[in-house]
């Protein structure tokens, strides 16, 4: 804790990172967006950004925009072909640092079914700490804490096969939290869940961030991106836009060109303006309601 204050090292730092998938190789196919990027097309094209301790960054982009490739660079699953990625100050291109980097940067993937190694919840959560050679007694307390953080304590001895997708994904988050990472990277955690499951994940991620955890959330759901302190839009492997959610969402045309959505309140504001009602264009749902109530009482 004190360390972070003494040395203001960014948790993650991308410096003009380029990455091209090897020819003839398809992109590791993710469950929902099995995108084969034609060989030689840049999957990451001169990406630069930093994430400070405690921040909540949302990376948004369409399928095939390179956002999952970006995520895999953070914990050294992929290495930049040029440029540099530093995670907690460690260079991800050094093979001998990979283990340490991964112990600091925990990653949750989109399909919870393909992340679990055992058929008992608690045992699965223990997998990371076991790999880190955490002493036996401490593993138990870490498992308990992690399950508590995702509100799945009652399910410790259950078989994940009998849980819902949202519950399984929470177990996967617990499995990463039990490693006590400095940053939590979530690669489309809600892509395979229903609305209720996604809501649960959103709540937990927000709580974790409030508790001090640095969060990098990769998504194409705007309601998830709205939670973040900062949003990075990427398209075809390039940074398109960066800023606070509402600033980013103001660029409606750009978002649409990047195959993304515009949040509902902004669309409604647009429709109302088109009907001659003067409302600000950049509003959250709450602000828009207040403006409308105010107009109504004046009318």
């Amino acid at each position, binding site marked *: 804790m004190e360390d972070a204050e003494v040395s203001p090292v960014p948790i993650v730092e991308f410096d003009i990172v380029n990455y091209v998938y090897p020819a003839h190789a*398809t992109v590791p196919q993710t*469950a*929902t*967006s*099995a*995108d*084969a990027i034609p060989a030689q097309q840049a999957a990451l094209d001169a990406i630069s950004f930093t994430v400070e301790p405690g921040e909540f960054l949302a990376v948004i982009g*369409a*399928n*095939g925009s390179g956002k999952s490739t970006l995520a895999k660079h953070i914990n050294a699953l992929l290495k930049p072909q040029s440029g540099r990625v530093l995670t907690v100050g460690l260079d991800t291109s050094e093979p001998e640092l990979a283990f340490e980097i991964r112990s600091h940067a925990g990653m949750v993937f989109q399909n919870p079914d393909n992340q679990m190694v055992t058929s008992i919840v608690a045992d699965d959560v223990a997998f990371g700490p076991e790999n880190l050679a955490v002493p036996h007694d401490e593993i138990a307390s870490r498992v308990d804490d992690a399950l508590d953080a995702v509100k799945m304590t009652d399910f410790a001895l259950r078989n994940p096969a009998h849980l*819902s*997708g949202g519950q399984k994904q929470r177990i996967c988050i617990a499995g990463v939290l039990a490693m006590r990472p400095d940053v939590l990277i979530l690669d489309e955690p809600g*892509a*395979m869940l*229903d*609305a*209720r*499951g996604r809501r649960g994940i959103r709540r937990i991620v927000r709580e974790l961030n409030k508790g001090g955890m640095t969060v990098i959330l990769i998504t*194409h759901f*705007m309601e998830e991106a709205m939670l973040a302190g900062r949003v990075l839009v990427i398209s075809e492997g390039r940074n398109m836009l960066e800023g606070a959610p509402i600033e980013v969402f103001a660029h409606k045309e750009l978002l*649409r060109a990047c*195959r*993304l*959505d515009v949040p*509902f*309140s902004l*669309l*409604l504001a647009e*429709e*109302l303006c*088109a*009907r*001659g*009602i003067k409302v600000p264009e950049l509003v959250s*749902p709450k602000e828009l*309601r207040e403006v*409308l*109530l105010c*107009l*109504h009482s004046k*009318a």
Partner: protein
Amino acid sequence: MLALEGVSYTYRSHEGDVTALKPLDLTIEDGTFLGIIGHTGSGKSTLLQLMCGLLSPSSGRVVVDGENIADKRVRNRLHLKIGMAFQYPEYQLFAPTVAEDIAFGPRNAGLSATEVDKRVRLAMERLRLGYERFAHASPFELSGGEKRRAALAGVIATDPKLLILDEPTAGLDPAGRSELLGIIEEFNRSGMTLVMVSHSMDDIARLANRVLVLKDGAAVMQGTPTEVFGRGDFLRSINLGVPQATEFAAELRAQGFPLPEGLLTLETLASAIAHELESGSVSRGI
């Protein structure tokens, strides 16, 4: 026309008998767009599989155009009338080329080679997959959205009059979603009967003209989108939502802004708000 008469489904597990679907009566008239909403485990996928004969009901009967599909001869021809796309249908792609994969259904139906080719071309056109570009490509080389459309082309290649879709847009990005929904809307407009499961209330509100709500294997509500989404409190009480526009209208109404019920889309909501503000200023002007 598809009718379910007292259809239920119970299966055995080692924990005893489980009722996945309680007795249900449902009639789907030709040309309908039926939206089905409910949580995982509410019986949605059981219902879909009963409709297309992949599961046999434990009680009751499923009748298609007056014929009970329990009859093996009726069931064997059922895939010509009813198309079924599971969630992530791209997982069923298997042939070396897109065209061959799409031809699987028509070939199973015993159609001639020229007829099969005609069907394949038509299906690709309907799914907006250019024949020149995609017909001879391997399905495994396509992008996620293209794979999804290729798989759906394989489902509609037999030209079914009823198409069943389980979460057709799951996992697609926003642009891919709206593109596919547009295609599905076209199907319905051209006379195809649609049954679609979705957890996006906005998509259901936009496309469906009938809505069925399932909870714990039972139909708890059936009606037009306006009727169903008009009961926001009930839907929320079973952890389901309403379309964003309906939600926004309800909150505005609760804060004292008078708005009519049954606002399901962005456009109708905007118009209603505009109307209210104008009529307010008009009445004051007088």
